[in-house]
Protein backbone atom coordinates (compact mmCIF):
# COMPACT_ATOMS: atom_id res chain seq x y z
CA UNK A 1 0.00 0.00 0.00
CA UNK A 2 1.33 3.44 -0.93
CA UNK A 3 1.81 6.32 1.50
CA UNK A 4 -0.86 8.33 -0.24
CA UNK A 5 -3.57 5.73 0.30
CA UNK A 6 -2.49 5.18 3.90
CA UNK A 7 -2.91 8.91 4.53
CA UNK A 8 -6.32 8.91 2.87
CA UNK A 9 -7.41 6.32 5.43
CA UNK A 10 -6.53 8.45 8.46
CA UNK A 11 -9.50 9.85 10.40
CA UNK A 12 -10.16 13.54 9.63
CA UNK A 13 -9.31 15.17 12.94
CA UNK A 14 -9.19 18.77 11.72
CA UNK A 15 -11.29 21.30 13.67
CA UNK A 16 -14.02 21.63 11.05
CA UNK A 17 -14.52 17.87 10.80
CA UNK A 18 -14.65 17.46 14.57
CA UNK A 19 -17.17 20.31 14.90
CA UNK A 20 -19.38 18.85 12.17
CA UNK A 21 -19.39 15.32 13.50
CA UNK A 22 -19.87 16.53 17.06
CA UNK A 23 -22.98 18.45 15.99
CA UNK A 24 -24.51 15.35 14.34
CA UNK A 25 -23.61 13.12 17.27
CA UNK A 26 -25.18 15.58 19.72
CA UNK A 27 -28.41 15.57 17.75
CA UNK A 28 -28.45 11.77 17.92
CA UNK A 29 -27.61 11.62 21.63
CA UNK A 30 -29.99 14.39 22.73
CA UNK A 31 -32.95 12.71 21.12
CA UNK A 32 -32.41 9.66 23.25
CA UNK A 33 -31.25 11.03 26.55
CA UNK A 34 -33.41 14.15 26.95
CA UNK A 35 -30.65 15.48 29.12
CA UNK A 36 -28.40 17.93 27.34
CA UNK A 37 -25.60 17.51 29.88
CA UNK A 38 -25.53 13.73 29.69
CA UNK A 39 -25.68 13.88 25.90
CA UNK A 40 -22.69 16.22 25.74
CA UNK A 41 -20.70 14.06 28.14
CA UNK A 42 -21.40 10.97 26.10
CA UNK A 43 -20.45 12.60 22.81
CA UNK A 44 -17.28 13.91 24.40
CA UNK A 45 -16.36 10.45 25.67
CA UNK A 46 -17.06 8.87 22.30
CA UNK A 47 -14.96 11.48 20.49
CA UNK A 48 -12.05 11.00 22.86
CA UNK A 49 -12.23 7.21 22.62
CA UNK A 50 -12.17 7.49 18.84
CA UNK A 51 -9.29 9.97 18.76
CA UNK A 52 -7.05 7.65 20.74
CA UNK A 53 -7.66 4.84 18.28
CA UNK A 54 -5.27 4.36 15.37
CA UNK A 55 -7.90 2.76 13.16
CA UNK A 56 -7.94 3.74 9.49
CA UNK A 57 -10.91 4.07 7.16
CA UNK A 58 -11.90 3.52 3.59
CA UNK A 59 -13.59 6.91 3.48
CA UNK A 60 -15.37 9.63 5.34
CA UNK A 61 -18.68 7.80 5.61
CA UNK A 62 -17.00 4.66 6.96
CA UNK A 63 -15.37 6.85 9.60
CA UNK A 64 -18.68 8.44 10.53
CA UNK A 65 -20.40 5.05 10.76
CA UNK A 66 -17.69 3.91 13.14
CA UNK A 67 -18.01 7.06 15.29
CA UNK A 68 -21.77 6.57 15.58
CA UNK A 69 -21.29 2.91 16.51
CA UNK A 70 -19.09 4.01 19.42
CA UNK A 71 -21.64 6.58 20.52
CA UNK A 72 -24.50 4.12 20.16
CA UNK A 73 -22.75 1.59 22.40
CA UNK A 74 -22.17 4.24 25.05
CA UNK A 75 -25.83 5.26 24.98
CA UNK A 76 -27.01 1.64 25.14
CA UNK A 77 -24.81 1.05 28.20
CA UNK A 78 -26.16 4.21 29.80
CA UNK A 79 -29.80 3.29 29.13
CA UNK A 80 -29.30 -0.28 30.36
CA UNK A 81 -27.81 1.02 33.57
CA UNK A 82 -30.43 3.72 34.14
CA UNK A 83 -33.43 1.58 33.21
CA UNK A 84 -32.44 -0.91 35.86
CA UNK A 85 -32.60 1.95 38.34
CA UNK A 86 -35.99 3.23 37.30
CA UNK A 87 -37.55 -0.16 36.58
CA UNK A 88 -40.64 -0.58 38.71
CA UNK A 89 -40.96 3.14 39.35
CA UNK A 90 -42.09 5.94 37.06
CA UNK A 91 -41.46 4.21 33.76
CA UNK A 92 -43.87 1.37 34.36
CA UNK A 93 -46.29 3.40 36.46
CA UNK A 94 -49.55 2.25 34.95
CA UNK A 95 -51.56 5.45 35.39
CA UNK A 96 -48.96 7.57 33.64
CA UNK A 97 -48.62 4.96 30.94
CA UNK A 98 -52.37 4.85 30.30
CA UNK A 99 -52.61 8.62 30.18
CA UNK A 100 -49.96 8.73 27.50
CA UNK A 101 -51.62 6.01 25.51
CA UNK A 102 -55.13 7.40 25.50
CA UNK A 103 -54.02 10.79 24.25
CA UNK A 104 -53.81 9.44 20.70
CA UNK A 105 -57.33 8.02 20.62
CA UNK A 106 -58.65 11.45 19.64
CA UNK A 107 -57.23 10.85 16.15
CA UNK A 108 -60.05 8.39 15.52
CA UNK A 109 -63.82 8.64 15.53
CA UNK A 110 -65.88 6.29 17.67
CA UNK A 111 -66.08 3.65 14.98
CA UNK A 112 -62.29 3.59 14.80
CA UNK A 113 -61.95 5.44 11.51
CA UNK A 114 -59.86 8.57 11.01
CA UNK A 115 -61.22 11.94 12.02
CA UNK A 116 -61.37 13.86 8.74
CA UNK A 117 -58.86 16.42 10.07
CA UNK A 118 -56.39 13.74 11.16
CA UNK A 119 -56.53 11.47 8.13
CA UNK A 120 -52.97 11.07 6.80
CA UNK A 121 -52.42 13.04 3.61
CA UNK A 122 -49.82 12.48 0.91
CA UNK A 123 -46.31 13.60 1.84
CA UNK A 124 -44.33 15.14 -0.94
CA UNK A 125 -40.67 14.23 -1.24
CA UNK A 126 -39.58 13.15 2.26
CA UNK A 127 -36.04 12.52 0.99
CA UNK A 128 -35.72 16.23 0.18
CA UNK A 129 -36.89 17.07 3.71
CA UNK A 130 -34.05 14.97 5.13
CA UNK A 131 -31.56 17.33 3.51
CA UNK A 132 -32.88 20.35 5.42
CA UNK A 133 -31.77 21.32 8.93
CA UNK A 134 -35.20 22.88 9.52
CA UNK A 135 -36.80 19.46 9.06
CA UNK A 136 -34.57 17.91 11.73
CA UNK A 137 -35.41 20.76 14.11
CA UNK A 138 -39.10 19.89 13.63
CA UNK A 139 -38.32 16.17 14.06
CA UNK A 140 -36.58 16.99 17.33
CA UNK A 141 -39.60 18.99 18.54
CA UNK A 142 -41.93 16.14 17.61
CA UNK A 143 -39.82 13.61 19.51
CA UNK A 144 -39.87 15.88 22.52
CA UNK A 145 -43.64 16.23 22.29
CA UNK A 146 -44.06 12.51 22.88
CA UNK A 147 -44.62 11.46 26.50
CA UNK A 148 -41.20 10.57 27.89
CA UNK A 149 -41.71 6.82 28.39
CA UNK A 150 -43.08 6.52 24.85
CA UNK A 151 -40.14 8.40 23.35
CA UNK A 152 -37.72 6.27 25.33
CA UNK A 153 -39.08 2.97 24.03
CA UNK A 154 -39.21 4.37 20.51
CA UNK A 155 -35.61 5.57 20.50
CA UNK A 156 -34.41 2.30 22.02
CA UNK A 157 -36.12 0.49 19.17
CA UNK A 158 -35.47 2.79 16.21
CA UNK A 159 -32.29 4.70 16.98
CA UNK A 160 -30.45 2.12 19.04
CA UNK A 161 -31.98 -0.81 17.13
CA UNK A 162 -32.54 -2.92 20.21
CA UNK A 163 -34.82 -5.92 19.75
CA UNK A 164 -38.29 -5.63 21.26
CA UNK A 165 -37.53 -8.54 23.60
CA UNK A 166 -34.50 -6.75 24.98
CA UNK A 167 -36.43 -3.50 25.50
CA UNK A 168 -39.18 -5.36 27.35
CA UNK A 169 -36.67 -7.09 29.57
CA UNK A 170 -34.78 -3.88 30.31
CA UNK A 171 -37.94 -1.96 31.18
CA UNK A 172 -39.89 -4.78 32.80
CA UNK A 173 -42.88 -4.52 30.46
CA UNK A 174 -44.71 -7.13 28.39
CA UNK A 175 -44.08 -7.42 24.68
CA UNK A 176 -47.69 -6.48 24.01
CA UNK A 177 -47.24 -3.32 26.06
CA UNK A 178 -44.08 -2.63 24.11
CA UNK A 179 -45.93 -3.00 20.78
CA UNK A 180 -48.65 -0.63 21.96
CA UNK A 181 -46.11 1.97 23.08
CA UNK A 182 -44.24 1.78 19.76
CA UNK A 183 -47.53 2.10 17.90
CA UNK A 184 -48.44 5.21 19.90
CA UNK A 185 -44.99 6.68 19.30
CA UNK A 186 -45.44 6.26 15.55
CA UNK A 187 -48.96 7.72 15.63
CA UNK A 188 -47.75 10.74 17.61
CA UNK A 189 -44.59 11.35 15.65
CA UNK A 190 -46.37 11.00 12.33
CA UNK A 191 -49.19 13.41 13.11
CA UNK A 192 -46.72 15.94 14.49
CA UNK A 193 -44.51 15.78 11.38
CA UNK A 194 -47.54 16.11 9.15
CA UNK A 195 -48.89 19.14 11.01
CA UNK A 196 -45.60 20.90 11.50
CA UNK A 197 -43.81 20.05 8.29
CA UNK A 198 -45.46 18.16 5.46
CA UNK A 199 -48.80 19.94 5.51
CA UNK A 200 -47.07 23.29 5.07
CA UNK A 201 -44.81 21.89 2.35
CA UNK A 202 -47.70 20.61 0.27
CA UNK A 203 -49.47 23.95 0.20
Amino acid at each position, binding site marked *: MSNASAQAGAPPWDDASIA*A*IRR*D*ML*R*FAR*MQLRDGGAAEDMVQEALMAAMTSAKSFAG*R*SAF*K*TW*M*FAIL*RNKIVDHIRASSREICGSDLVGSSEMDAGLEAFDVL*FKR*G*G*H*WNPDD*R*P*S*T*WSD*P*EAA*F*EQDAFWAV*FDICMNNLPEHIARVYTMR*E*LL*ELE*TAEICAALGITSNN*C*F*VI*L*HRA*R*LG*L*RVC*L*ENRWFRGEAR
Partner: protein
Amino acid sequence: MKMMNCKDATRLMSERYERTLSLRELLSLKVHTAMCKGCSNYGQHLDVLRLAAKRLREGGEG
Protein backbone atom coordinates in the same frame (compact mmCIF):
# COMPACT_ATOMS: atom_id res chain seq x y z
CA MET B 1 -64.59 -11.78 10.15
CA LYS B 2 -65.10 -8.32 11.62
CA MET B 3 -64.29 -5.51 9.19
CA MET B 4 -61.03 -3.84 10.10
CA ASN B 5 -61.14 -0.16 11.04
CA CYS B 6 -58.36 2.45 10.77
CA LYS B 7 -57.42 2.14 14.42
CA ASP B 8 -56.79 -1.62 13.99
CA ALA B 9 -55.03 -1.09 10.67
CA THR B 10 -52.56 1.47 12.05
CA ARG B 11 -51.77 -0.83 14.95
CA LEU B 12 -51.02 -3.74 12.63
CA MET B 13 -48.91 -1.54 10.35
CA SER B 14 -46.79 -0.68 13.38
CA GLU B 15 -46.60 -4.27 14.63
CA ARG B 16 -45.44 -5.34 11.21
CA TYR B 17 -42.04 -3.94 12.21
CA GLU B 18 -42.02 -5.90 15.47
CA ARG B 19 -43.39 -9.32 14.64
CA THR B 20 -44.49 -11.48 11.72
CA LEU B 21 -48.17 -10.89 11.03
CA SER B 22 -50.44 -13.87 10.45
CA LEU B 23 -51.74 -14.47 6.94
CA ARG B 24 -55.19 -13.49 8.13
CA GLU B 25 -53.87 -10.20 9.53
CA LEU B 26 -51.91 -9.47 6.37
CA LEU B 27 -54.86 -10.11 4.11
CA SER B 28 -57.35 -8.04 6.09
CA LEU B 29 -54.79 -5.24 6.27
CA LYS B 30 -54.29 -5.42 2.52
CA VAL B 31 -58.02 -5.23 1.88
CA HIS B 32 -58.34 -2.26 4.23
CA THR B 33 -55.47 -0.21 2.80
CA ALA B 34 -56.67 -0.89 -0.76
CA MET B 35 -59.88 0.94 0.12
CA CYS B 36 -58.54 3.52 2.59
CA LYS B 37 -56.26 6.26 1.27
CA GLY B 38 -55.58 7.56 4.79
CA CYS B 39 -54.22 4.22 5.98
CA SER B 40 -52.38 3.64 2.73
CA ASN B 41 -50.62 6.98 3.30
CA TYR B 42 -50.04 6.03 6.93
CA GLY B 43 -48.16 2.90 5.86
CA GLN B 44 -45.88 4.99 3.63
CA HIS B 45 -45.31 7.50 6.43
CA LEU B 46 -44.12 4.72 8.75
CA ASP B 47 -41.51 3.84 6.15
CA VAL B 48 -40.46 7.52 6.13
CA LEU B 49 -40.09 7.40 9.93
CA ARG B 50 -37.90 4.30 9.50
CA LEU B 51 -35.73 6.09 6.95
CA ALA B 52 -35.46 9.16 9.19
CA ALA B 53 -34.28 6.99 12.08
CA LYS B 54 -31.75 5.34 9.80
CA ARG B 55 -30.49 8.76 8.72
CA LEU B 56 -30.08 9.80 12.36
CA ARG B 57 -28.25 6.59 13.25
CA GLU B 58 -25.80 7.13 10.46
CA GLY B 59 -25.26 10.78 11.27
CA GLY B 60 -26.80 12.41 8.25
CA GLU B 61 -25.67 12.31 4.67
CA GLY B 62 -22.01 13.00 5.54
